[in-house]
């Protein structure tokens, strides 16, 4: 297998953009990534395009998105493929690109993740997101995504003593981090008191336990390490790319406080990299809900099982702590245009490893981990990145 690198990254600021079309978002992020690598004018060297998107059909009435993305970037003619894995849609797209480059199929692949969610009102958005659950066994019963993670949270509280305060501390931390990210959707500090007292969505989860409903796109140019060394930006190596699936319904998991897909995807990524959790300098994890960040840090092996909540309260996962988590602001503050999230996490990892993260820079960052989760945990990708 050939060594693979990210040669360019780009992303739109995340936010609410009723006036921007899907292809405007795609063009913005994709052209930034190509310009970052210095090949916008030579973009016909890109041999394939992968588009991660959850539900343009549900949110925007648009299927068949990949050729639209190719047109938006002046790449018409090359193979253009959309991947869907709920909120892990673009983590999957990135892994496919990395594998195809590693295996020698392509020299250069562009990956774009995109979602435009704010085209519907909240009940419609909730319904479309709910389509990532099982239609008959969960959604028809009345399950929504907040409700599934609420049941995980209640069980985690029951088994490990995780508290309301620990959940809210995740939100407070990520909002504090996001204040330092100019592309974050909600750059606003929140207090623990306010986070704990917010309106209930699905008890025990409240409004501040939920990530944001955002529009946006993110892009990464994937090529061989050799090729990346000749391009404009500092190449960042892809050290490992793991993916796994788990039961699509919570009621078929032996223990809903464990994300097995996270564990399996991480095992595969760490094995490829020849690294372990102790080698990771920082992580961007899938905090679609506060409880999801706690599960992720545990199941990635960054903290002991059951200790994800206390680790947040102790500051271990804050910028400046032992293992900073979601320094970008995470899905909670940076925003969560679901199909864009996986690649946006990779944009942050690359930015940190290049040393370009400004006043949220993690000192001495050497190995970065990104963790992208789909549904209630049925799909997961884990990627590891390092300086070349």
């Amino acid at each position, binding site marked *: 297998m050939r060594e693979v690198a990210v040669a360019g990254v780009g992303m739109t600021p995340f936010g609410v953009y009723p006036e921007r079309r899907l292809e405007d978002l795609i063009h913005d992020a994709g052209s930034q990534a190509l310009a970052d690598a210095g090949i916008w004018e030579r973009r016909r060297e890109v041999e394939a395009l992968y588009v991660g998107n959850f539900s343009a059909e549900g949110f925007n009435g648009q299927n068949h998105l990949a050729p639209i993305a190719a047109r938006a970037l002046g790449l018409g003619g090359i193979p253009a493929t959309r991947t869907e894995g709920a909120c892990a849609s673009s983590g999957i797209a990135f892994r496919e690109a990395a594998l195809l480059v590693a295996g020698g199929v392509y020299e250069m692949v562009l990956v774009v993740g995109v979602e435009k969610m704010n085209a519907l009102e909240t009940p419609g958005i909730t319904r479309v997101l709910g389509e990532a659950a099982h239609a008959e066994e969960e959604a028809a019963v009345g399950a929504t995504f907040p409700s599934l993670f609420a049941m995980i949270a209640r*069980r985690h509280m029951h088994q490990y003593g995780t508290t309301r305060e620990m959940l809210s501390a995740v939100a407070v931390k990520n909002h504090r981090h996001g204040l330092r990210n100019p592309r974050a959707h909600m750059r606003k500090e929140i207090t623990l008191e306010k986070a704990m007292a917010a309106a209930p969505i699905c008890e025990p989860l409240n409004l501040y336990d939920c990530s944001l409903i955002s529009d946006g796109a993110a892009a990464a140019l994937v090529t061989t390490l050799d090729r990346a060394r000749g391009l404009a930006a500092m190449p960042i190596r892809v050290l490992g790319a793991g993916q796994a699936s788990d039961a699509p319904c919570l009621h*078929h998991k032996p223990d809903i406080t464990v994300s097995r897909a996270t564990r399996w995807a991480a095992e595969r990524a760490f094995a490829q990299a020849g690294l372990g959790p102790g080698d990771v300098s920082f992580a961007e994890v899938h905090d679609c809900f506060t409880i999801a960040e706690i599960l992720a840090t545990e199941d990635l092996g960054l903290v002991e099982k059951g200790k994800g909540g206390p680790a947040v309260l102790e500051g271990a996962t804050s910028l400046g702590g032992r293992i900073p988590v979601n320094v970008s602001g995470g899905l909670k503050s940076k925003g969560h245009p679901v199909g864009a999230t996986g690649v946006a996490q990779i944009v942050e990892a690359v930015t940190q490893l290049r040393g370009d993260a400004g006043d949220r820079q993690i000192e001495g960052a050497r190995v970065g981990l990104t963790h992208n989760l789909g549904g209630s945990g049925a799909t997961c990708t884990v990627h590891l990145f390092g300086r070349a």
Partner: protein
Amino acid sequence: MAATTDGGIVIAGMRCGGCGLQSAPPQPVCPHCGGDREIGPVSLPPRGTLYSFTIVHVAPAGLEDEAPYVLGIVELEGGARITARVRTADPGALAIAAPLQLSEIRAGVCFFDPA
């Protein structure tokens, strides 16, 4: 979730001879071990306990009128779990491990009452 009436409501499920676990709904492959041998239909008992639950305040389109409602994962006697609704006048009194009794299956959705 299909139901048959046999002196009371039961839930259509399956048992896997490979791993010994019960589950619902019936399907050709066991959701626990992936095996497809020794799979047989079983009628799951209409009783169980609450494995976890939530009170849904923000409902999806189509269910807004029913909110707030209780959604739970119910562990039936014998070990199979299903996602179901729980009807109670006092959701604040619900707790993990609370005993439940199936009261109705409507449009494939199981509704439980505290036992």
